[in-house]
């Protein structure tokens, strides 16, 4: 057992971070705020060149042949840079669609499960070329299908909560397209896991921004970060962040190493698949909490400045809200974990 990033994984992370520092700095990310399209194709191509969307594709298919651990490492780095666009969908699609792996085609995700009587939305309607459509929870063992964006009837939403996640309202539920995968479960699990990894990145962004501000900002002749009221808020956020981060790492590792899921499952009276689901749902639950809470605390630590558009914390806060909603809420995740607690 060595439950730490391997040297290769560290190298992957550092390489990606260095690319992101250069090409996805905050100014670059913010330059598309509030626009109907938020993905700059040339930058997207650079992510593709770095292998981001081919990370899960097999080497035989020209991919990197890496696992969820590596994909999660990449997503955390992307989240910590607030990179917009259909990252999770494109990585998952990249496993089987060369056009997604290469970055030519941008693939969003849509789950029919949420909603009920409320309106249904489509994320990134002017950026995605197509969507992986996950069946609703009542639909049994329905497949995941791929639908072209052009086939969907939508109305643009003029203002979305997250200025980096433009939206359209769907005129009707999305019908099935061509089959992408006959089993929806592993796809949904990967989508939740990678979304959780991105949320860990968001939480980290919020926390370290708040820490930096707390060191710099002085009131009452002291850095505000020397007041316990501030220190303790931030310490609690670190605890949430680390719990989420390690939960993501655990879920990713046992997805990649199913023999571990077998052993860990036995201890808890679960099959390997159930054990993996419990780990993934736990990771998403903790990552939702970490990202939302870190953003809220970071706004609070920034005081009035945190309430201004200029300070970028609100971008992390709004994205966290989006990600805690679309593929299954924290409440859904908690229900999944409870059902697998025996």
């Amino acid at each position, binding site marked *: 057992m060595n439950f730490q990033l391997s040297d290769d994984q560290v190298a992957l992370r550092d390489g990606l971070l260095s690319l992101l520092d250069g090409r996805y700095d905050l100014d670059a990310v913010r330059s598309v705020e509030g626009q109907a399209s938020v993905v700059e194709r040339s930058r997207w191509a650079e992510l593709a060149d770095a292998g981001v969307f081919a990370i899960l594709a097999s080497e035989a298919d020209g991919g990197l042949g890496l696992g969820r651990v590596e994909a999660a490492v990449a997503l955390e780095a992307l989240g910590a840079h607030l990179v917009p666009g259909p990252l999770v969908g494109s990585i998952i699609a990249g496993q089987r669609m060369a056009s997604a792996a290469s970055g030519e085609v941008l693939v969003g995700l849509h789950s029919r499960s949420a909603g*009920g*009587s*409320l*309106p249904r939305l489509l994320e990134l309607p002017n950026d995605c070329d197509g969507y992986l459509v996950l069946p609703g929870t009542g639909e049994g063992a329905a497949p995941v299908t791929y639908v072209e964006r052009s086939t969907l009837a939508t109305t643009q939403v003029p203002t979305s*909560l997250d200025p980096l996640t433009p939206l359209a309202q769907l005129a009707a539920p999305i019908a099935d397209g061509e089959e992408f995968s006959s089993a929806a479960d592993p796809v949904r699990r990967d989508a939740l896991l990678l979304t959780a990894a991105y949320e860990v990145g968001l939480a980290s962004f919020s926390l370290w921004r708040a820490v930096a501000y707390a060191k710099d900002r*002085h009131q009452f*002749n002291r850095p505000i970060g020397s007041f316990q009221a501030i220190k303790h808020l931030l310490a609690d956020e670190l605890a949430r962040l680390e719990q989420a981060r390690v939960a993501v790492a655990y879920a990713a590792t046992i997805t990649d190493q199913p023999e571990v899921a077998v052993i860990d499952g036995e201890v808890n009276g679960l099959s390997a698949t159930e054990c993996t689901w419990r780990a993934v749902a736990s990771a998403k639950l903790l990552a939702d909490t970490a990202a939302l809470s870190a953003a809220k605390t970071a706004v609070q630590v920034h005081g009035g400045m945190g309430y*201004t558009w200029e300070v970028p914390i609100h971008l992390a806060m709004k994205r966290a809200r989006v990600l805690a909603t679309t593929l299954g809420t924290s409440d859904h995740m908690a229900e999944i974990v409870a059902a697998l607690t025996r």
Partner: protein
Amino acid sequence: MDLRATPAEEAFRADLRAWLATTLPTLPEKPAHTDWQARRAYDTHWQELLFAAGYAGIDWPLEAGGRGASPVEQLIFKEECERAGAPYVGLGFVGLLHAGPTINAEGNEAQRTTYLPKILSGEHVWCQGFSEPGAGSDLASLRTRAVRDGDHYVVTGSKIWTSHAEVADYCELLVRTGTEESRHKGITWLIMDMKSPGIEVRPLKTISGSTEFAELFLDDVRIPVENRVGDENDGWRVTMVTLSFERGTGFVGELLESMRLLRSLTALAKDTGAFGDPGIRRRIGQLSASFDSLWALTKRTVSEAQVTGIPGIGGTVFKLAYSEAGQRLADLSMELLGEAGLAMSPLATSGVDLNNDEWVEAWIKSFNLTIAAGTSQIQRNIVSERILGLPKEPQVTGGSK
């Protein structure tokens, strides 16, 4: 403990309710949130109507031209206006709630005569120049400098969180007249004419996308010495007088609004089926209990003010508790809206009264509840020191950064 209205209170409420019923339908349509000139026109028109009916300056003393209403009547006024959907005090709030009362209490006769009537009638709009980029919670560290030059102060510096500065006529301004280290003891309170040369107003966009606030940049702005309220370097005390007017019923409108939102959220939960989940129901029940108790707390605070002239401990506790309950309400609303809570423009619905844009805006604004008008951290300091009598933290002296 008596919650029954006196005959005078009942009469006050009945008169007001009748007036609101006849007056509100005459109002023009509300202007767009971003159209500042139209908003000024709308709000000052409402103030004119209040003035004509004798409701302007409801809490001001009679001799200052106000209504001189009792604290209970002030509460009834806020309650009835909120329930009838009357306009908020709007752009008039700095003049009516801060600057006017300060000038009345601490200004000289000439200042009272010059400024008070036009605040009451709605003719003049005021803004506030207190906070600075480097002086928020620690207001006493403010650095905007005023140098005496004959009959004028020459003021240079910057202010932040100035509401509707774009359309204000005057600004209540705090400046440093003492040494850099003088803190509370070197601050002066000035009336600044917003038409003075050297003032630049720069809108400040909030995370909800609005530009309700602005930054003020002051570059050698000349303010006549006669515009000083109180003595030079005595501005901190003058300000504290103003702030003491803020307590008590300060957040009544917001509380009543939250109670209305909770009812509407409960209806939505019934529409969507979420009310069938006992976990959701309990959260609704907890919020309902919190808001009801804060409403009762308000009545107790007002009763104390009515009898003793001092609002007691309720006001400080209120802010702390209300701001957290408000955030819990906002979080619950987003959870119940689900995906619909990700859109800030209205969505098309069938059958369900969604108002998603209103909810989303309320959620974003809820982040400000624990920050604006004193962060919850500062409120907890106040509660623990002034009410519980716990010792202050050791002070750090010396140059601030």
